[in-house]
């Protein structure tokens, strides 16, 4: 039993830290730290920077241009990125589609698409959820009918994150209604410029445009864009969903968020004293700090198991549940910490160019919004209720 990182791992961490210190654009870093809006080119620049260093495809093997890192290395990389104020890596091409193509795609698909993900030629988005099929993915109804060399696709996808930036979408579509709902699903790669595709924004509760609806009206998709076999898409989709994701507990995000909270609690005053010295608030902070401290080790235990090859099963569901609860709790405390200054919301101040004077403390503006926006954490990506069902099922209940 040894909780220390090996000298190699520590050197690896140093490498990353130095790289980020030297090369991460300070304007971008500030935007992330201040909770301001990132635009498309912010992400593109960040991806390009990582790609020059060969660190973009952290889950890919070296033969495809990936890092070949193990789970612990990926974890260190994520920790350092969070700590440095780097944007997240947009996961759709890199962490979702990439692994599916490597395992189930044709040689031609791999040769064509994987390099384009790395060099930024393609921005992928995900076409899984539908208005009638959220947690119950298998009941999806977007139809693809084969006509000669093309599939004709009709239907609607929703919750398509950053779909307005994407030029390609990978979709689950129904190619058969025989058998169980899962059995007639296929996995298609679709060009967003195809005639018949329309992207409509969904404005979220904080007024932000982050997700979309995507409509398909007789969209023609070449049959060579089918991944694997027809009607086997459910298998590929599940592979994608359960594919080991180191970041699922969000420990890096929570750590940064708790640091922010602590900083705020040291300067926010309550009856003239720092809020951090108020017994009630200090106890609330200590509680979540303890939860997070334990979660760091829970996370690493599972990562370490994954690094030695034993695949994390229900453990990733546990990480998802407790990890999101902790993150949401930190968001909640940060909101509380502000007192009345949680109320003002100046949307324009989320833009980097904004230079009007802040209302209240300069860290206050995005806080309440972040609290509300992060309610999604326990809903999206398989709601916490679904995760509990999965765990219960694995126990034979």
């Amino acid at each position, binding site marked *: 039993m040894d909780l220390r990182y090996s000298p190699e791992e520590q050197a690896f961490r140093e490498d990353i830290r130095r790289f980020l210190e030297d090369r991460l654009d300070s304007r971008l870093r500030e935007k992330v730290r201040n909770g301001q809006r990132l635009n498309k080119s912010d992400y593109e620049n960040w991806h390009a920077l990582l790609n020059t260093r060969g660190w973009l495809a952290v889950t890919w093997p070296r033969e495809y241009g990936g890092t070949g890192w193990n789970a612990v290395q990926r974890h260190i990389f994520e920790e350092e990125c969070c700590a440095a104020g780097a944007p997240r890596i947009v996961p759709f091409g890199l962490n979702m589609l990439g692994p599916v193509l490597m395992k189930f795609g044709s040689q031609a698909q791999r040769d064509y698409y994987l390099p384009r993900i790395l060099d930024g030629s393609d921005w992928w988005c995900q076409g899984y959820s539908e208005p009638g099929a959220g947690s*119950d993915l298998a009941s999806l109804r977007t139809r693809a009918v084969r006509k000669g060399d093309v599939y004709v696709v009709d239907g609607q996808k929703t919750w398509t994150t950053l779909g307005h930036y994407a030029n390609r979408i990978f979709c689950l579509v129904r190619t058969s209604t025989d058998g169980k709902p899962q059995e007639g699903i296929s996995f298609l790669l679709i060009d967003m410029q195809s005639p018949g595709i329309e992207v409509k924004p969904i404005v979220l509760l904080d007024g932000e445009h982050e997700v979309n609806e995507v409509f398909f009206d007789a969209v023609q998709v070449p049959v060579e864009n089918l991944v694997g076999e027809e009607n086997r898409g459910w298998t590929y989709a599940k592979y994608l969903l359960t594919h080991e994701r180191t970041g699922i507990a969000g420990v890096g995000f929570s750590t940064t968020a708790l640091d922010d909270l602590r900083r705020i609690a040291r300067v926010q005053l309550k009856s*003239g004293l720092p809020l951090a010295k108020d017994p009630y608030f200090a106890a609330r902070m200590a509680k979540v700090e303890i939860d997070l401290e334990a979660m760091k080790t829970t996370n690493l235990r599972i990562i370490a198991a994954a690094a030695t090859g034993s695949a994390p099963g229900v453990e990733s569901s546990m990480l998802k549940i407790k990890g999101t609860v902790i993150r949401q709790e930190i968001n909640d405390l940060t909101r509380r910490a502000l007192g009345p200054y949680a109320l003002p919301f100046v*949307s324009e101040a989320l833009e980097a160019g904004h230079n009007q004077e802040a209302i209240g403390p300069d860290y206050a503006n995005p806080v309440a919004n972040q609290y509300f926006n992060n*309610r999604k954490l326990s809903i999206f990506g398989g709601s916490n209720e679904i995760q509990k069902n999965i765990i219960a099922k694995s126990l034979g209940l």
Partner: protein
Amino acid sequence: MDFSHNEQRRMLEETATRFLRDNYPLRVRHEHAAATAGFSRDMWSRFAELGLVGALFHEQHGGYGGTGFDIAVLFEALGRSLVVEPFFASLLGGSLLAELCRPEQRALIAEIINGSRLVSVAHTEPQSRYDLADVATSATRDPHGGWRLQGNKAVVPNGDTAESLIVSARMHGTQSEPQGIGLFLVDARAAGLERCGYATVDGGRAAEITLNDVVLDESASLGRAGEAFAALENAVGLATLALCAEALGAMQAATDMTLEYLRTRKQFGVTIGSFQVLQHRYVELLIEIEQVRSQLINAASSIDSGAPDCQWQLSAAKHLTGRVARLVAEETVQLHGGIAMTWEYGLAHFAKRLVMIDHWLGDTDHHLERCVMLARDTGLSATSAIR
């Protein structure tokens, strides 16, 4: 013992509820909130005509209500429709005026009641958080008579549109002494008064106000020496009650929407309301909401009967409201799933208001601590609201 409302209050409730149902769908609410003022002047006049503003005031001040239960009934209805018009600011400012104003200022209350004048209270300061006694803004005697105000006021509700502001300022004493606080009636266009308005997360508007050597007549000072803090505490007490009632209304709306969704939304071939986990979590909300209703009754009753533990009952109500409001907001969103995260579907707006009510007039921690202090200082323990 009687838990039913009297005839007049039932009428108030019906009038408000019917009018809002017919004239104030969520779409209209969003339009009002998006306007420059953050509400509709026209709608405000109609509310006034209907007598809803007058319900905030006692007959002796020209109103038709003014008791704790009047306020509770009205704000519960406002909360169900997420009304953004300035009832809260008017209650705060109007109650202070009603308690302290000079005879020649009484016309102002009539103007508030008929909807032609908007008044708010500039009390909170950048450093004061929820501490009512923390006032750094200074009021100094002008050698030529009158007063000069200097300082900063924070998050003043509807402070950007109010024509009149009641400003608290320290006449003497240290920064957090209840004694030595004075209240001043200030014209919002007064020289040296600057205001910076902004939207709030929950759909309203507020303002930061700078008082840079604002010169006031002698008559601007409200009430007699030493009266201000008690009057402030009373007005804030009524406004706290109002927030609890508004939250109760919003909780009901949020849970009603959720029940409807649980009954109709299908997943895995069945309505999601058939899942036992969602049933139990929904039921837990209902139980807590009944508790909030009860504590609201306790608090309103303690105001109306002038009970000695009135401040404890109010803090208990605000604490419980804050605790349950967060639970209802988070759980109704979670029970819905993704759709609740959208602007279009209405629930999120109720959730935002429910959570942010905690940031007005003291959050759930502040009021729990206040309950501890009140019980400790006065030796009052659980003297029950039921006598």
